[in-house]
């Protein structure tokens, strides 16, 4: 019995179970065997421990390096040495992030390589993603306390959100100390980085919404690009005239109900905003929205802008697959700095005109400057060095020439001047349009937090109208109900 129990704990070796005799010698032999078994097991346990230890060390090593590598941090013993070392030449690793495609990455890399050459003690780790994914990644990095040291920030769309969460470093002290030199800056462009009274972003370039026109297609049907800026009625008339001469399956323009800056521009022309500055209330009325939807719905019904399903299919397509490149529309609503990108994919000559003005509005123009800026996260570990790079990037003539107004018009007037001969003709026209818009549009207003969701709802109900699923009135009511839900649950 005793033997039985004694063995039972010993993982039940079949040999032991088989033997239930009480022969003493036999039992002794068994005990010896099982002792050997125990020793064996002890040995095995030790081997196991050893193997485990090795595995742990190995995995710890690899996950350690993998962790920091994946996060993109770097320079093992970095951090404190670099920032506090008062201008010495200690190695610094800066993490810089931006959004954009492959060709834009080439431009950034060229500029950052140049900076590394001029500043051998700085090593720049680069992180890039397309616009949508960029903000997903950034949000997680910032929330996780591990953001890059210098980040691209679309001030208009995301600045309000990030500043309201207290995640960005105010840059005014650096401007006052001269670490960021803004003496040659266009004040309006500098202001585009201001949120709640402080500067949080230094612009890499500003752009705004405009209409790009296929000049060749227009001249083929005997029409010309308008000389002066049109108002809304004239613009609709212009599109209707184009449409009357176009073959079937080609449209004069794109549906403004699916362009995120169109409603913004519309309400700004009426002296209002998408949201109140604190993001708690809707900044415009049902009537504003109704008029807006009606304006575009009429154009859809007359077959002047793309029908709903084509609009939906092409809305989120990259430039090379856009409606104007495919020859499906004669004009396209876009951002000014992107106009030149379309020319990479088509041979027809393009031109740009301003977004329509509102004759009886509070402001004639409503364009909001969209500043693609550099910002510095509050928990960046290398603020001093990040500021140096930022200052060089936006003010250095050489860097400016490589960047070539990629994200729109640069803020430094000297850089602007140096670019005059290098710029794409569409960008030159852009400079003119901007000068004109700055005279009749209200000051830049960074969008309040919550506006991306409001825009999303604005799109959805515009689509309901375009597909004929809702009347304009129904859509306006439903949209406002949704706006309220969004603001209530934030």
């Amino acid at each position, binding site marked *: 019995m005793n033997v039985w129990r004694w063995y039972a704990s010993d993982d039940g070796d079949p040999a032991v179970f088989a033997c239930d005799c009480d022969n003493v010698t036999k039992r002794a032999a068994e005990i010896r065997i099982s002792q050997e078994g125990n020793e064996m097991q002890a040995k095995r*346990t030790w081997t*196991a421990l050893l193997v485990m230890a090795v595995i742990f060390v190995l995995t710890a090593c690899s996950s350690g390096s993998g962790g920091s590598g994946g996060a993109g941090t770097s320079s093992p013993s970095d951090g404190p040495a670099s920032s506090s070392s008062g201008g010495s030449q200690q190695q610094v690793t800066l993490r810089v992030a931006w959004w954009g495609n492959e060709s834009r990455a080439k431009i950034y890399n060229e500029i950052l390589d140049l900076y590394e050459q001029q500043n051998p003690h700085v090593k720049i780790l680069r992180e890039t993603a397309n616009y949508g994914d960029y903000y997903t990644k950034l949000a997680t990095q*910032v929330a996780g306390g591990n953001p890059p040291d210098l980040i691209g920030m679309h001030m208009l769309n995301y600045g309000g959100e990030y500043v309201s969460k207290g995640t960005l470093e105010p840059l005014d002290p650096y401007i006052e100390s001269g670490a960021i030199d803004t003496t040659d800056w266009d004040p309006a462009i500098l202001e585009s980085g201001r949120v709640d009274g402080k500067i949080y972003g230094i612009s890499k370039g500003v752009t705004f919404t405009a209409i790009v026109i296929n000049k060749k297609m227009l001249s083929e049907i005997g029409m010309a690009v308008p000389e002066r800026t049109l108002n809304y009625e004239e613009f609709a008339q212009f599109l209707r005239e184009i449409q009357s001469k176009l073959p079937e399956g080609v449209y004069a323009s794109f549906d403004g109900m699916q362009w995120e800056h169109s409603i913004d521009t519309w309400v700004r022309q009426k002296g209002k905003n998408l949201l109140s500055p604190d993001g708690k209330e809707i900044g415009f009325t049902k009537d504003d929205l109704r008029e807006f939807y009606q304006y575009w719905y009429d154009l859809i019904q007359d077959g002047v802008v793309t029908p709903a*399903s084509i609009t*939906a299919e092409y809305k989120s397509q990259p430039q090379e697959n856009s409606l104007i490149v495919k020859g499906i529309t004669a004009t396209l609503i876009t951002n000014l700095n992107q106009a030149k990108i379309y020319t990479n994919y088509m041979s027809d000559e393009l031109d740009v005109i301003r977004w329509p003005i509102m004759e009886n509005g509070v402001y004639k123009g409503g364009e909001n400057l969209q500043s693609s800026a550099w910002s510095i996260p509050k928990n960046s570990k290398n603020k001093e060095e990040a500021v140096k790079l930022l200052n060089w990037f936006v003010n250095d003539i050489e860097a400016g020439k490589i960047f070539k107004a990629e994200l729109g018009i640069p803020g430094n007037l000297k850089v602007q001047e140096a670019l005059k001969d290098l710029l794409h003709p569409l960008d030159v026209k852009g400079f003119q349009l901007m000068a004109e818009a700055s005279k009749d549009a209200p000051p830049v207003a960074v969008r309040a937090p919550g506006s991306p*969701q409001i825009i999303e709802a604005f799109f959805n109900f515009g689509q309901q109208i375009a597909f004929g699923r809702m009347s304009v009135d129904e859509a306006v009511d439903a949209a406002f109900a949704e706006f309220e839900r969004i603001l209530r649950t934030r």
Partner: protein
Amino acid sequence: MTAVSRWWARNKVALFFLSPWLAGMIMLSLVPMVVSLYLSFTNYNLFEPPRWIGLTNYTNMFLYDTRYLKALQVTFVYVFVAVPLQLLLALALALFLNRGMFALEWFRGIFYIPSLLGPSVAIALLWRKVFGNDGIFNVVVAPLGIQPRSWIGDPDTALMTLIVLHVWQFGSPMVIFLAGLKQIPKEFYEAAAIDGAGRIGTLFRITLPLLTPIIFFNLIMQIINAFQAFTSAFIIGGSDGGVLDSMLFYTLYLFINGFNNFQMGYASAMAWVLLLIIGFFTALFFATSKRWVYYES
């Protein structure tokens, strides 16, 4: 010896060897799950500390969020149309291939390829081309007198394109069906043949009943899979759920709330509801399985 120490003595080696995976499971799965359960009762915008709001996320979801209800609807249609179609196709092809044919291995391989490619971004992009305004699908159906249109841009047909993409990935259930068919003993067919059973009779009296455990397995796996579908809608419909939200999968709306709208608490609550939904259907199928799944023993 107490029970615990005996248990420890018996299992310590196993635990040591399992420890990397146990650590992974606890730290990478269990802890995040518990945290997400906590977050589902809070308002959490990623940047500020979570604020406890009780069941508000859950009530908002069902009472006020019309887009959420739309996402539920889209997902249910997708799961309960795409999965049966896919399994039917997989079963039909498995039966066909099982009869033995020239270069069977090759065909099996070829039919399996879509399952490997299906969930990829490249295929999703290709789908855009196929069902777009200028896609080849329009060319294919033109002889049938169907007007060319953008199948992806039309709210009535957009979800259909995703269902077709899902059905197209019939390869992996097909391979499992094939394996199941090979397991059915030949004797049954011989006996049936002697008794004069026809092809249809054999199919419904022998093949399908003996295949039910495999059908059951495939059904459960594919339903769980389909509820969590994301990539196809994200790429084909755009990150906003496609035209009129017709491709707004549950997981996509969850992603939008969490990462675009910075509402992690709400997104966590949505994730837990999805877990309950999947759990409910899995349990339901298990409960009914006694009635229609035959195990040989």
